[in-house]
């Protein structure tokens, strides 16, 4: 039906369509509404005024020269995905450039017309709509008020800090009062910018500066609306939280991946893929740099003698600094840098990665990844951490003894698969490859036995 627009506008094989690099290449962490294609439009529309159709766009020209284009196709002339206007041109664009046209036909036509007439593009804030301009005026007034309030609040805080604690009712009362005043100040700072459409647009495009409180706030809100809920659910449903740590309030966004492969929290990961160290992306929403410790724990190591399970530590990496703008924790690269480091105390990986493994027939293993914030940004002694025993690893006592507080966690799962034998061989566990777990045959209780009567 016409009311449900599909992503594929034209009948074309998906593989034939080249993905536009700008839409696919950069990862968009924080966008909300804008689809990738939409972003491409706005970038093109904002950054450079659309080129007149007489001179060919760069991408098309490069592409045409890269592949041998047949003679009859070259006659079609230049086809710009931003400006193709009719069905014929669109089909030709797909056939020759393997690119979907951008946006609606109406939009493309408008762009083409404005390019032909060399119309000057009006900036978003100056768009001549009366209601919009009135709204902007009102919002700007409010912003000025908020800024004035911020200034007075800062002055008040300064005055209170200089005040004698005896006058303000004791040191504790003064501290409480200061805390609440700072909280109010932070709220005002957010409120000053939250109604700005430019801020919203920048945030949706993923161009927000995470050093600024408003973008951190927006990112946090967005994370809490969906991603955090999913992560929280996975962690609690698979009992990582009461099993490994008593409780955890997630305060930072975390993305897990192996090489190029993204792993959703709780996914089963092929053993060949998880042989290498994962890479993490930890987005904090509080200002300032933090030193963090990453711990990977297997929560389901079977103990056949006792018919139970225990824990095993797979990795400890310490003293990694992250901040709202510096989110990546590439463990692989950190390990490379560690190999170059001479001083053992300057290393970051205390316990090197061992590939997770699971025996045949055993239930899946949960591999929990915890990110701990180090107490007051103090460095931990990596040499001492390196002496931690891997087997029967207790995460609670580890966190307690090193004064670590967890900020976020995620997990992936492993079970026996085809490549597991090779992984175990390379990990030096050749003698355990053939171990197979089987369920115990449970004799039914006498009254549950199937008898003649039941048949």
């Amino acid at each position, binding site marked *: *039906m*016409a*009311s449900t627009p599909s992503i594929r506008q034209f009948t074309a094989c998906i593989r034939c369509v080249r993905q536009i690099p700008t839409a696919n290449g950069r990862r968009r962490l924080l966008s909300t*509404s*804008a689809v990738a294609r*939409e972003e491409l*439009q*706005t970038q093109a529309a904002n950054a450079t005024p659309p080129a007149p159709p007489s001179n060919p766009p760069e991408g098309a020209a490069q592409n045409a020269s890269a592949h041998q284009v047949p003679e009859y196709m070259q006659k079609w002339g230049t086809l710009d995905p931003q400006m193709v206007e009719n069905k014929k041109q669109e089909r030709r664009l797909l056939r020759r450039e393997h690119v979907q046209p951008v946006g609606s036909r109406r*939009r493309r036509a408008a762009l083409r017309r404005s390019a032909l007439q060399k119309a000057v593009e009006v900036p*978003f804030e100056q*768009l001549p*709509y009366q*209601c*919009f301009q*009135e*709204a*902007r005026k*009102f*919002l700007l007034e*409010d912003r000025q008020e908020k800024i004035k309030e911020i200034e007075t609040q800062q002055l008040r805080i300064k005055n209170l800090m200089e005040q004698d604690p005896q006058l303000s009712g004791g040191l504790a009362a003064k501290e409480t009062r200061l805390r609440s005043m700072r909280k109010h100040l932070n709220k005002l700072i957010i409120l000053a910018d939250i*109604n700005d*459409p430019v801020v*919203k*647009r920048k945030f949706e495009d993923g161009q927000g500066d995470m050093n600024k409180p408003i973008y951190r706030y927006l990112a946090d809100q967005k994370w809490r609306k969906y991603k955090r809920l999913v992560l929280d659910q996975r962690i609690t449903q698979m009992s990582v939280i009461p099993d490994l740590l008593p409780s955890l309030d997630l305060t930072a966004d975390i993305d897990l991946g192996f090489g190029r492969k993204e792993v959703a929290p709780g996914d089963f990961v092929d053993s060949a893929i998880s042989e290498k160290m994962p890479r993490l992306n930890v987005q904090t929403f509080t200002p300032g740099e933090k030193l963090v410790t990453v711990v990977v724990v297997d929560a389901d190591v079977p103990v056949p003698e006792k018919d139970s399970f225990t824990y095993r530590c797979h990795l400890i990496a310490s003293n990694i600094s992250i901040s709202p703008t510096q989110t990546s924790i590439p463990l692989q690269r950190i390990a490379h840098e560690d190999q170059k480091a001479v001083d053992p105390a300057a290393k970051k990986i205390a316990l090197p990665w061992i590939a997770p493994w699971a025996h045949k027939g055993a239930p899946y293993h949960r591999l929990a990844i915890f990110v701990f914030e180090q107490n007051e940004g103090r460095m931990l002694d990596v040499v001492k951490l390196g002496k931690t025993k891997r087997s029967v690893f207790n995460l609670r006592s580890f966190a307690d003894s090193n004064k670590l507080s967890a900020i976020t966690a995620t997990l992936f799962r492993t079970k026996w698969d085809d490549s597991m034998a090779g992984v175990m061989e390379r990990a030096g566990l050749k003698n355990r490859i053939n171990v197979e777990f089987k369920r115990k045959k449970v004799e039914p209780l006498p009254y549950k036995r199937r008898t003649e009567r039941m048949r």
Partner: protein
Amino acid sequence: MNLSTFRPIFRPYKKPPTTPKPRQPIRPAQQTPQHHPFSSTTRLQKRSKKSSGTDPRITNIRYHLSHPLTPRPLHFSRTRSLRHWTIHRAWLLFLRKRRAAEERELERQYMSMRSACEHLRLMDGNGNRVTEEEGGGQGPDPARLGAKGREVGRLYRSAMLKRGVWGSVPVEYGRLVTDFPAREGWNYAWSAR
């Protein structure tokens, strides 16, 4: 009332009721009466020779036959939706500010009434201010007299009278009917520890 505004523009032509003409003998040629034509096309339309080929009724029928029940979804472009959002936020902010202003106004009025009552309470017969001990009670027991007796806060006590608030019904009846009503309506002195 003139209903001509509600009448559709194109409608079957109907002659206004006139006085019935004297009957004429029916001739075979005039079997079908002329003022009730078989065609439903209005005369005005029929008279105009330059028929453009688009009958508005047909257009209307075709429109309603082919039109889906659900309207087309509202799609905004990026900038349009941002403009919409801006206006919406400004409107919400306006509402919020207006509400806050109303509340502040109410609070101001209440406080000024309160201070006026307080003045009356601590005023003796000569219009002089007395101290708190000399003044009468306030809040739950406005009738209590102070150390200086009836002269202090006379106006206050009469203002606090609830007589005639609900007409002839005493205001004390303005509570739920219960089997065991409390002697005082509300225990103001009660506090959780």
